[in-house]
């Protein structure tokens, strides 16, 4: 294992961790930032995978703008998840 693959593994690991955090944080603002971080790490991976076009687009649109509109939406609604028992599958019920 050389150092370049090391970096790959580290970035993938950090990306997965920030994805988990984005899903688990109850503060939605933090979760949106976590989501943007996932996009940012993904865009670094795109660069490693020799896709500079995609990396630029992902960084500009996926991370920055979609994070921004998430934050605006949170500003206009509410910031914290309400704590209750979690029941799966609202969207499969008729």
């Amino acid at each position, binding site marked *: 294992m050389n150092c370049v693959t090391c970096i790959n593994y580290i970035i993938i690991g950090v990306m997965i961790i920030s994805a988990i955090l984005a899903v688990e944080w109850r503060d939605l603002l933090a979760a949106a930032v976590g989501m943007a971080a996932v996009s940012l790490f993904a865009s670094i991976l795109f660069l490693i995978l020799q896709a500079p*076009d995609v*990396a630029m*687009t992902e960084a*500009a649109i996926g991370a920055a*703008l979609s994070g921004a509109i998430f934050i605006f939406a949170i500003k206009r609604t509410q910031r914290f998840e309400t704590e209750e028992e*979690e029941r*799966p599958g609202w969207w499969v019920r008729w």
Partner: protein
Amino acid sequence: MVSVLKRGLAIITLLIIGYWLAQGLAGVPFGQDKMLVGRYYLEHVIEQTGSINAVTAVVVNYRGFDTLGEVTVLFIASTGVGALLWERKKRRTAKTEGSIVLTTGTRLLVPFVMLFGAYIFIHGHLTPGGGFPGGATIATAFLLLYMAFTMYEIPHKAFEKTEGIVGMAYVIVGLIGLAIGGYFLYDWIWQTWGLGRDNVGRLFSGGFIPIIYTIIGLKVGTELSGIIDNMLKEGVKE
């Protein structure tokens, strides 16, 4: 207790799905040459489209139809956001002006950010980038303005009209191709007129790619700023 059980159930289901996906992916080895049509693109891209960035050529020229659809999707999103958040009268509700650093920085930066965005989309056929990141960069400039100044608003009427006109321009470029070359979205500038053939690798080449990317850049920029505008303003009662 029940919640933990359900979580566990969900995780197990997901792991099964993941295993199934991995099984499929195992048949598509990573890092190997699987190109078929891709090789054709790489071999003929310069001679057929005049663009040295193969991705741009694929996006705008070979698979231009997808891009037309993609632009439409963004147009729909901006229209849809406008329709859902429609109010007879809207106003910005931000109360605190941005800090002095933000306002001064914005004043200084906005022209350069816009210039950079324009640079990105005009040079789409030469360097990585193109209309989508370029347009997004322009939208970021407007985002900065919105964050720095509480009263700032984009000129929406003009922006909406620009969206429409620019969208039509894309379709009309395609229809000119239909009239001149016999195919919708035909690259008439490069293939019929042969403009810029001795210029490959410099700005004035690439057939209609710079034109289309300019159109896309303007469209993406106006649409994303429109979405930001709609998201930030709230309706007021008269």
